[in-house]
């Protein structure tokens, strides 16, 4: 792993004849999938014009563009990310995710707090470089296209999100908690350590959420993905990342979000006894005091979750503090 960012080198795209490209497509994708009209692109500035079956040449490698990637959350239909393409590397046949440059500045609103955000290809390029070889991060590299756009090329990770993975475990929550959660908790601790690795090097992930962790089928490891989100941080540069880590922990402990609505709908007696102490400081419809619903959640673990409560007086300032408490909770979990 490199500690410093390597300089991004603009590379003149290598020249390929159309016949050679067609031969490569036939070899890696199949003779029936060779486009009749081959559109070869070296300048990706207008990413809407980079389409299915086009060949993009970056550096000395041609890539056959397949579909746009999609991202969905919270039940909203998945949205196409037109600047993120799945592609086949026509040099070795591997599947890649190619992230083109999409300049976007916008205001995010989280729990009524508004802050300035932007996409930062250079940040993602730095992090890819920084985490090269790290088993907990998506792997890839960056280079500039013929118009100096910072393109990121990441290995495609085959697997489900961590969020989807855990939903299939356990007959019920108690079974999940005793038989599956300890292993998941170990995974989570390693993911937090990976974020600490970034923070210690002055980088934030920027968009920590449960669908940005993929369980890699090839290695069995969970990996963080998508590092291009950036925001104008306040006093604590890492506060938003820590908030995301807390949300994921609550999701993992609860085997999904435990919401006020769910409790009401299910007629749970707990619903009548909820106070601001029990709910997430930002998402007031989600519970963090999970011990109230699942009494077998140990105190040390619940104690961590309560740092994300609307009534919390003490917050985590950094991953070191969080990891300290996670370690204690993990030790207690062993003795259950």
């Amino acid at each position, binding site marked *: 792993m490199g500690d410093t960012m390597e300089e991004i080198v603009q590379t003149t795209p290598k020249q390929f004849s159309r016949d050679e490209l067609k031969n490569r497509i036939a070899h890696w994708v199949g003779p029936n999938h060779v486009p009749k009209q081959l559109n070869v692109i070296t300048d990706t500035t207008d990413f809407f014009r980079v389409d299915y079956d086009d060949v993009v040449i970056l550096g000395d490698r041609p890539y056959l563009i397949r579909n746009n990637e999609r991202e969905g959350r919270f039940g909203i239909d998945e949205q196409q990310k037109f600047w993120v393409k799945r592609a086949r590397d026509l040099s070795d046949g591997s599947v890649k995710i190619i992230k083109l440059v999409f300049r976007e500045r916008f205001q995010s609103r989280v729990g009524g707090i508004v802050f300035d955000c932007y996409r*930062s*290809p250079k940040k993602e390029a730095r992090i890819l470089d920084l985490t090269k070889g790290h088993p907990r991060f998506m792997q890839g590299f960056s280079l500039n296209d013929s118009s100096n756009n910072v393109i990121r090329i990441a290995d495609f990770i085959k697997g489900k999100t961590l969020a989807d993975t855990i939903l299939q475990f356990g007959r019920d929550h108690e079974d999940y908690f005793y038989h599956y959660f300890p292993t998941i908790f170990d995974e989570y601790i390693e993911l937090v350590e990976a974020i600490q690795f970034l923070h210690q090097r002055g980088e934030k992930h920027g968009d920590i959420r449960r669908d940005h962790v993929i369980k890699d089928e090839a290695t069995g490891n969970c990996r963080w993905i998508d590092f291009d989100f950036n925001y*104008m941080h*306040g*006093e*604590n*540069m890492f*506060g*938003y990342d820590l*908030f995301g880590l807390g949300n994921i922990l609550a999701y993992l402990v609860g085997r999904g979000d435990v919401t006020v609505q769910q409790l009401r709908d299910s007629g749970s007696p707990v619903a009548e006894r909820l106070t601001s102490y029990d709910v997430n400081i930002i998402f007031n419809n989600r519970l963090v005091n999970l011990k109230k619903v699942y009494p077998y959640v140990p105190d040390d673990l619940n104690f961590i979750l309560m740092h994300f409560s609307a009534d919390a007086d003490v917050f985590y300032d950094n991953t070191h503090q969080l990891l300290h408490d996670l370690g204690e909770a993990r030790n207690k979990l062993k003795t259950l």
Partner: protein
Amino acid sequence: MNSRKANNRNILIAVDESENAARAVAYVRDLLAGLTGYHITLITIIPEPSEDYFISEAERTEWMKDKNASARSILETYRKLLIDAGFRDEEIKEVLVIKECTSIAECILAEQEKLACGTVVIGRRGISKKEEFIFGSTSSKILHTARDCAVWVIE
């Protein structure tokens, strides 16, 4: 605490365009106007966005120019306020720092150390708990991490 530095009469006031900064300056003015031997440093920290926040170098230059001008204007306003209250011109210094900073509090305290100020004065923004949770609080961080100086947090 190093009492020699803490007891000196160099006072650092962190200011920006906010009302809490105005309160901090007003507090110092009301407390110390007419007394001799105090040296006031008005400091503004402008956190510079990271490299690709700007689409072009021209946009970055324009941003820097605007921020610089508004910060200079704020500093000048507060200098005048203090002089009108009886401070002498040579007793007031202005410092403008534009840099990428992970923490404004750390930047302020680094300047406090550099300028050997025995007192740091800052206004409290009165941010919500949610906001403090996600983005932290500069006054809280200064209060908790300052060493070798006194801290006045003005409500």
